[in-house]
């Protein structure tokens, strides 16, 4: 089980953490990966300039609600195989 950590600090919240968490949860379920990934919220990841910060495999990515699916396909789903 791997965690996908979504920052919910002030800036990230304003830029759409709420939607990103919901979208990632939806994508994980749609792809039948509930036993592999878990979306977790985290307080400030320290890179407010790159909000919304998403931490996965020890790397911090900048994700927006509209790029959530792209992030998921490229880095999460792509990484399964």
């Amino acid at each position, binding site marked *: 089980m791997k965690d996908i950590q979504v920052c919910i600090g*002030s800036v990230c*919240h*304003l830029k759409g953490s*709420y939607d990103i968490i919901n979208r990632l949860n939806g994508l994980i379920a749609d792809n039948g990966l509930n036993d592999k990934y878990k979306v977790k*919220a985290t*307080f*400030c990841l*320290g890179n*407010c*300039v790159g909000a919304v910060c998403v931490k996965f495999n020890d790397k911090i990515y900048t994700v927006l609600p509209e790029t959530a699916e792209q992030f998921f396909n490229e880095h999460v789903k792509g990484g399964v195989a």
Partner: protein
Amino acid sequence: MYFIDTSFNSLIKYGEELCGDHIEQARLNDCTILVLSDGLGSGVKANILATLTSKIAVTMLKNGSTLEETIDTIVHTLPVCSERHLAYSTFTIIKIYNDGRGYAAEFDNPFIFLIRNGQTVPLKREKRELNGKTIYECSFVMDEYTLLVAVSDGVVHAGVGRSLDLGWQWENVDKFIKNIDISANAFDVTDSVLKECGKLYEDMAGDDTTVLSIKMKEQETINLFTGPPKNPAKDYDIIKEILSSEGKVVVCGGTTANIVARSLGAELEVDLSTMTQELPPIGKIPGVELVTEGVITINKALEIMRDYVDPNKNDIAVKKLRERNSASMLASIIIEKCDRLNMWVGQAVNPVHQNPKYPMDFQFKMNQLKEFASVARQMGKTVNVVFI
């Protein structure tokens, strides 16, 4: 000092649209005044009598009028019923000070119930005649184990003509209230008494039925830590100082929370179930009362606090206090559990605040906290602000 937890609600007489009982409340710096009034008859007429009586009483008493002046004004103001040729409305006036001292003046309502640790507290009532009305006055002391309930006669008559020939009766109501769990808050008490009345009336109340409950909640010092200290080298020392201060600690701010967790060697967990579209979720750090995001949460909590001190919006705020989100939890701690507020305000500037596109910059934060302190002072809290 205590927080005076009050809750009231009514069942309206079956078939009526308006309630003939009315309660008014005024929260002052050192005390809370409540007036429960039951107007003659039912429906519109009763509603007007009860509303006038309780509004006049609360307005005059909070502005320092004596009981004599207040009752005199009520007697000379109430419209006379054209059928009964009477201007009549009962009242129970209750005044509770923040230190627990209480006073009641009762006229023609069922006597108040005062319960301490499941036992009825005997009250020494003094009889007084004012404007031809017999009024009973009494004084008492409340603490966190004391519950005060005032009701309209619809409660002691509950069930008349239905499940009970003589109605519920004062002694039985007293027994019922004594059995309510001492940890219940005022809302739960009012709710359970009214539910019982509804049951006895078989959901068709024969009279307007009103319950007012008062409980005292112990308050304490709250240390609100928001924003990382200006000098990161001092983080650890400052956190040690805050955590060892008297009272409970509340942390507002993502980075601040991370620093506190790190200094404690603790895991910072996020409780996603408290997240809403508007508000980031709360976090959990052992030994810390509440952990939230900073500027957005404080802004929302401040809105609730502002409404709370506005008599016209107080009821909206009270409802919001019970919601499960970070701002409601923060506002509830400040309003209900805090008599002394120490605000530890970090002066570090987040680089993103330099971005003109970001609407909540450092200055916004400082102004917001200034207002937060001032609204808390308006509530009668002692507020101390430390810049770190």
